[in-house]
């Protein structure tokens, strides 16, 4: 809640205004039955029609004012909710965009998305309602009790005793209900999980004729979820009837005791009548408080989740020159005894959320890796999935910092650069990289204001020009979300165009030509050799043919270098490489 207050502080005057408007609106609303009581008890006996009409018009006037004030307050509260959530979301998105790899792993993409969407909606509706219902409910409750107190202390004391009991009861039920709903949610998650498993694995399920087994598995999850749902729904349906019951019991007491007091000349019959109306008001007050309470616990949880991200300390800041290491040689890209592992200490409750940022290579780590690539040179990395290839890229671009050793780019410790300065040196295609829902042009130039000529040249080098040219709109042809309207090979060629377009100092291709057939792959390599010779390049591949002509090749296995050298050298010295070559090239 403190966190929300930071955003709400500057709206404090407006919120104070909303609350006072709401306050006066609610007070006037409470006056209406009071006026009615006065009309019936004191004006009617005067037998004067004009006076009756006058008081009646007074009621109408009150009703008009109440509506005006309530509408005004509600609208203003929405304005505050709109503006403050806008800022919360802006800050949240901004930090999310700048999270380091490690931080991203900790939060997890699905969780981050739900924080930006459903959590921000929860907070928004809370900010809106807390200013209106949050004022209205207690006022209805307190005001109702206060007015009845002025009307008849004796009768009102019945309410004073019952109201706290009801509130405690309702809140108790709600407190019990919230965890029940969390259980329901988990049950539904299981149902969805089993469905998704079956949809993605339908071929396996059918091939093994496991339909009946799966039906039973689903049946069990379905039954559990339903039972939990029934329990939670029944518990949460209780507050309404229970409160009504209590109030009605109170009402009966008011009638009985009221009759006695009328008989003793202590009160008027009109008072009992007004009590009936105020009872309804108090009922609404109690239910409103319950709603505010439920909303508050929900919003509180959401606000905490948002706060966790927004207030995360900035990671991977540039280090002062003095704390940076100096390069061991004059290479352009250097790994100096680097040891790295993705954070071992925080394996938290969401194992499924992990491993997304790093391209599903969670376990991989690097131990004591050293290499040096000359400016304009080329390095190939080959190894099985999970051997640590992508981690080398993650460290080179400083998405993570290694535990031991140092990484150097352009003769300087990577930690000496600001993130943007470092990244501007690179043209990169990640494993499973993405196209965004925008034109091909924007996907390639990617905010770098490149000349039309460089875009064309890049698409030509990346073997993408042929199919791009075939579109009526050419480079302005739009990609849909995740580039789903392109084939795997087309996507990879567009991504490579993006990497080449700015003629980067360093070119990195992480398994980014796997969907190309051998012929296109070969032509791509020739084009890069011809037009991007100045770039220092690092190419990761599973196919030996993609890297065999590079200056140096590293064979990586479980985070360790098994062999290093040119193709010819490795064929001599590294049995794993030789074996790999034979299995892939078919020369036994």
């Amino acid at each position, binding site marked *: 809640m403190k966190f929300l207050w930071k955003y709400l502080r500057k709206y404090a005057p407006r919120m104070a205004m909303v609350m006072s408007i709401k306050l006066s609106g609610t007070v006037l609303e409470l006056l209406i039955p009071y006026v009615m009581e006065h*009309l019936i008890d004191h004006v009617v006996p005067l037998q004067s029609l004009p006076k009756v009409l006058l008081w*009646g018009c007074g*009621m*109408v006037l009150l*009703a008009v004012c*109440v509506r005006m004030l*309530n*509408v005004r307050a*509600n609208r203003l509260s929405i*304005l505050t909710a*709109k503006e403050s*959530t806008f800022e919360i979301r802006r800050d949240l*998105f901004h930090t999310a965009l*700048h999270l380091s790899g490690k931080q991203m792993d900790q939060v997890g993409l699905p969780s*981050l998305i739900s924080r930006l969407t459903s959590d921000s909606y929860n907070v928004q509706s809370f900010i*809106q309602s807390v200013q209106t219902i949050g004022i209205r409910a207690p006022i209805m409750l307190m005001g109702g009790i206060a007015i009845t107190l002025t009307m008849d202390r004796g009768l009102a004391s019945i309410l004073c005793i019952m109201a706290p009991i009801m509130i405690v009861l309702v809140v108790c039920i709600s407190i019990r209900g919230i965890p029940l709903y969390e259980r329901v949610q988990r049950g539904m998650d299981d*149902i*969805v999980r089993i469905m*998704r*498993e079956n*949809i993605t694995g*339908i*071929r*396996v399920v*059918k*091939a*093994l004729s496991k*339909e009946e087994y799966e*039906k039973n598995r689903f049946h069990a999850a*379905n039954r559990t979820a339903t039972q939990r*749902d029934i329990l939670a729904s*029944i518990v949460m*349906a*209780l507050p309404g*009837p229970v409160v009504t019951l209590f109030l*009605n019991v109170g*009402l009966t007491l008011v*009638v009985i005791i009221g009759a006695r007091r009328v*008989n003793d000349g202590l009160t008027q*019959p009109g008072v009992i*009548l007004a009590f*009936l109306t105020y009872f309804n008001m108090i009922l609404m007050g109690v239910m409103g408080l319950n709603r505010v309470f439920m909303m508050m616990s929900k919003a509180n949880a959401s606000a905490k989740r948002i706060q966790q991200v927004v207030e995360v300390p900035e990671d991977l800041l540039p280090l002062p020159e003095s704390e940076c290491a100096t390069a061991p040689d004059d290479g352009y890209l250097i790994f100096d005894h680097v040891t790295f592992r993705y954070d071992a200490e925080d394996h938290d409750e969401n*194992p*499924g959320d992990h491993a997304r940022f790093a391209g599903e290579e969670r376990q*991989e780590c690097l131990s004591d890796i050293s290499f040096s690539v000359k400016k304009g040179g080329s390095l190939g990395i080959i190894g099985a999935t999970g051997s640590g290839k992508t981690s080398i890229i993650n460290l080179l671009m400083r998405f993570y910092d290694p535990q031991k050793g140092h990484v150097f780019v352009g003769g300087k410790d990577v930690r000496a650069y600001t993130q943007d300065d470092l*990244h*501007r040196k690179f043209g990169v295609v*990640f494993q499973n990289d*993405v196209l*965004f829902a925008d034109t091909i042009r924007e996907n390639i130039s990617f905010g770098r204001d490149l000349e039309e000529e460089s875009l064309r040249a890049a698409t030509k080098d990346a073997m993408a020009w042929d199919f791009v040219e075939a579109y009526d709109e050419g480079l302005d042809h739009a990609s849909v979300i*995740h580039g789903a309207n392109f*084939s795997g*090979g087309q996507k990879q060629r567009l991504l490579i165009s*993006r990497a080449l377009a700015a003629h980067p100092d360093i070119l990195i291709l992480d398994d980014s030509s796997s969907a190309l057939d*051998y*012929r296109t792959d070969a032509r791509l390599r020739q084009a890069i050799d011809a037009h991007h010779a100045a770039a220092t390049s690092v190419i990761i591949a599973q196919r030996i043919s993609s890297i065999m002509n590079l200056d140096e090749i590293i064979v990586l296995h479980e985070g360790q270098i098994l062999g290093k050298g040119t193709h010819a050298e490795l064929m001599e010295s590294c049995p794993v490489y030789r074996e790999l070559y*034979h299995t*892939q*090239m*078919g020369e036994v």
Partner: protein
Amino acid sequence: MAARDSIMRKPKDTRGTFRRMVSYLGPFRYLMLLIFALCILSNLLSLLGPNLAGSAINEAAAGKGKVNFDKVSYFAMRMLICYVASSLLTISIHMLMVRISKTVANRLRQDVFNKLMVLPVGYFDRHQSGDIISRVSYDIDVISTCMATDVVSILTSLVTVIGSLVMMISISLPLSAVALITVPASILYTTRMRKITQPRFAKRSKNYGIMNGFVEEMLSGQKTIQAYAYENRVDEKFDHINTDAAQAYYDADSYGVTIGPTMGFINNLGLSLIAMFGSILYMSGLIGLGSISSFVLYSRKFSGPINEIANIINELFSALAAAERVFTLLDEKEEVADRENARELRDAKGNVELSHVSFGYDPGRTILHDLSLRADSGKLIAIVGPTGAGKTTIINLLMRFYDVDSGQILVDGVDHRDYTRRSLRGAYAMVLQDTWVFQGTIFDNIAYGKENATMEEVVAAAKAAHIHPFIMRLPDGYQTVIHEDGGNISKGQKQLMTIARAILYDARMLILDEATSNVDTSTEREIQRAMRDLMKDKTCFVIAHRLSTIQNADRILVLNHGDVVEQGTHDTLMKARGFYYQLYHAQFE
């Protein structure tokens, strides 16, 4: 919160959908009758309450010293009994209705799932999983919520409106006429407001949708954005989208929040009118003071449901639209049933023959043209070609995930459609490119294909697939639970597990789809040896990029753009210097 306000989708066949929806309540018809009766009873009781309260107050109104306490307590006790009974009935109605609606939801979910199990594989190729899942998680939820709350509220409203009206009229006809003035006002107002607010709420949902989509897209590409220092542009774009979403929210909700106060105003107006005219009637001696009070209570009861009607109708329609989506799925065409007299394929020899097979996923777009191929028992058939050439189509046909358009596939000399699907599929073991594991123990995942597999068998299969040492290194060994998408084990290990599954399954025919492409290089040789053992005496269909596998193949099928452009052994194809020759040499360039 967006869910409830989502655009009112009109169902196409309202009556049919409604009837079918009601049929789901069939098993509960007696219970429903009971609920109906309880509803009427509970509402009549709660309607009697104000009447009795009015009578009691009328008695009390006699004034100082003249109150007849016997009568007051007589009415008060009855009032208490009515209220208590009514509350108890309300609670039990809720309980019953929750039970019914959740049971219906349970049945609907199970029906949908059972349906998924009999749908042809093609359905899943054509439909997004998110869409199918949203029918189970969202649509069925809408239906069940509507049942749990709206059925009761409709019944209650009906009883309350009619009951209060009768009571109001019985108290005073002229006063009722005054009270009724507010009804058309409320109805007119709510329908007008609905017309104004609905497009605004629709726009709000749309803007939220755009924002969700953008956030999802950008954050999944976060690393790329950082790598190209593109953050500022993305921040700017988000600012626009965020502004639009915030504005749409304001536009919709600032209208929405006027409804409550306005309805309150109409009610208060009614109250003022009743007070004024009630006073006039009282002065003319036509009505008692207590009667005015009970009239006020009834008029409040009367106007409550009227305010709700617009909402209820909205919810009812969106529930019907949701039901229609669910029923559309339930009505999808199922996998063609086995032929009559279909026989069991037992102890298959493994002779497979494709004879003049033509096939296309869409009518008019043929993928395989007149393909013929013989795979004798124990032979190895390799299928090669660029991505998208239609390699997996052949597997789809062999497994009868799809049926051929013309021609036939023969297994042991018999058209494979003459076997039961179950036994035909049982004759194949399969390792697919997309490794599939489910949330469960490693043991369950390996033993998945073989019922009652023993621990020894599973361990043997794991050893043959070279995954046993890895499993033993895990803290819980074979009882380790793998999470959805296998987040806690690597892709390579998942692949080995599916290989172990196929080894344990031990069928006569084997299908491998680029099965070894993710396996660790150092154990790859051994795996291939194990695979070769597995393949021995089996008819194998292999989709592979590895040329070593292809070289040993008894027959290689070269596909391009859905056509078989060449077939033969490695040697004959190399001699032919065609497409295969080019593919083969490209890797050395």
